[in-house]
């Protein structure tokens, strides 16, 4: 047991598995703080994962691929926002619709663009980064250094998100809109615009999460490769009480439990019981910390401006 916890791979994998959860979870925080439940993050991740490869391969630059993925993710998010915010459609149904659409369109385009052997093997990948000082520290170096640049980007975004949400004027307005849009409107705030902003941010961050999967961890796209991470991210965000650090913490917990289940698969237990670990741990943690988390008061409720 001890050597499992002393194995740096356990902790490195924790971070790696947490990243594609933390990014959309942070995104979801923005969207829900503005009052929109964005269940379409799963689909946005998938579409972004695909277009990251497309652009990266076409331009020969992983960074352009990353940028392209973000733009595509943003576009999908804005379409979602248009229907959810401007047309006040049911956010959950819309989200599900986008997820079905995403699963279909990416697999379809994969076949038509690249055939059945999969995406090109010479697709560039986002770089990994060795942190100079930490790199050579025995245990810590293996845990913290050498990850994809997206992992570090996620950490930076985490701090920015928290700062934005809780320490800027715009963040204050965004939260106000998610709590009581009517009050925000009477204070002269454009509720609709801010909800678009919240959803757009969730689209951008989900897209980063998706791009991490395809050109951060790998350099290829596989159908449905997000495997429900958009939904788990939503759970992480709720667990994290709609805060950036909370969401990150929940994503880490989930990443840790997944990494642990990988280490433990060859123990006496049935592997399928071991694989339940992330889910059981999440429930236990939630119940243990007195899981009461109160969503933004107007979360998921469409708002029609008075006029």
């Amino acid at each position: 047991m001890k050597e499992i916890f002393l194995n740096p791979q356990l902790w490195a994998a924790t971070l790696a598995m947490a990243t594609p959860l933390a990014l959309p979870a942070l995104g979801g925080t923005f969207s829900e703080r503005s009052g929109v439940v964005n269940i379409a993050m799963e689909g946005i991740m998938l579409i972004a994962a695909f277009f990251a490869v497309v652009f990266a391969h076409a331009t020969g630059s992983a960074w352009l691929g990353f940028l392209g993925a973000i733009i595509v993710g943003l576009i999908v998010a804005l379409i979602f926002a248009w229907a959810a915010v401007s047309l006040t459609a049911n956010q959950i149904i819309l989200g599900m619709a986008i997820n079905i659409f995403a699963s279909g369109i990416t697999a379809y385009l994969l076949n038509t663009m690249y055939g059945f052997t999969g995406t090109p093997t010479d697709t560039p990948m986002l770089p990994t980064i060795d942190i100079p000082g930490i790199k050579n520290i025995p245990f810590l170096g293996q845990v913290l250094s050498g990850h994809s640049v997206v992992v570090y980007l996620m950490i930076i975004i985490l701090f920015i998100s928290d700062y934005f949400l809780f320490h800027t004027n715009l963040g204050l307005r965004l939260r106000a809109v998610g709590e009581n849009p009517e009050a925000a409107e009477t204070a002269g705030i454009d509720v609709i615009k801010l909800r678009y902003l919240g959803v757009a941010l969730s689209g951008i961050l989900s897209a980063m999460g998706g791009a991490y999967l395809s050109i951060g961890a790998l350099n290829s796209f596989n159908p449905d490769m997000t495997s429900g991470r958009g939904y788990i991210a939503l759970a992480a965000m709720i667990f994290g009480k709609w805060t950036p650090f909370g969401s990150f913490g929940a994503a880490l917990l989930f990443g840790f439990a997944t990494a642990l289940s990988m280490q433990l698969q060859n123990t006496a237990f049935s592997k399928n019981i071991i694989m339940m670990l992330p889910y059981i741990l999440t429930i236990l943690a939630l119940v243990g910390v007195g899981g009461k988390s109160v969503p933004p008061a107007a979360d998921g409720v469409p708002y029609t401006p008075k006029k």
Partner: protein
Amino acid sequence: MKNLLKELYIPVVAVLIAIIVGSIIMLITGFNPITAYISLFIGAFGSVNNIANTLAAAVPLILTGLGVAISFKAGLFNIGAEGQYWIGAIVGVWIGYSFTGLPWYIHIPFALIAAMIAGGLWAGLIPGLAKAYTGANEVITTMMMSYIAIYFSHFLLEFGPMMEKGGTIPQSPVIKESAVIPFLIQNTQLSYGIFIALAAAIFVYWLMFKTTWGFEMRAVGYNQRAARYAGMNVPLNMVLSLGLSGAFAGLAGAVQMLGVQHRLYDSFTSGYGYTAIVVALLANNNPIGVIFAAILFAALGTGSQYMQLNAQVPGQMADVITGLIVFFVAAHRVAEVIKGMFAKKQKKEAEA
């Protein structure tokens, strides 16, 4: 008549827009949209067999949809119907194959009721109690319990206690003849399970809208504080309504096993539990509405399979079309936008 037209205008236009956008995508990608839509429709409703298959596909969606609708009505967000479905399927199959010598009129109800109880406990026991007494968000707990249920089924089937003896394939034994819900129309997937689903919908309607328990659940769902002030036991109602919700998802699993699959296969997901969320929401959580929403989804499913066959539209493209239709049905107000655009144009023309 005029009013009816007005009411139909929006959904009809919404579907039309979905069809047009879908057509554009199909034209761009080199498919004939007309053939595609015709075969989508024929696949869903074009013959007795196709109608039967559509109805058959609607059965699990009706039942899981009812489950989800109950929880939504009670103000809880049970998104783990998928897991409750699996638990119901497991229990239903287990009773189906391990009891011999029972007459069908005992064996089938026994399996179904046990599956309902199991599904109910799966939702009510952990997510329900956790929600009621620690406030743990049921969105997370039911989702997590879903994954746990699926791994549990892997555990049972992959060289586990429910794997067929002597085989290498991870699947359960076939259920006994006495546990089989017979097919209603031969050569289709439609079993007498459809009547169970329809009866369940009516039952749930009655329960939610005509009984004191339903009254309580709805009151708690709409306004917990007022319910508490009126002397209702709010935590208990939460546990019970999540339990009831899970019971119908569990029933869905068992009906599907006894009526269609007749054994449990090792699989990832059925997907019913997730579609059920959309079904319930489209139906505005009305149990009778659930029937129609489920049929819509079932029709899209069976129709899209047929569309692959007869219009050579690949399955992935079928998903694209389904996604679009659902999107525009939800965003039905797009019809107003378009109407507004026309009105503006007309006004401009009139002014000119």
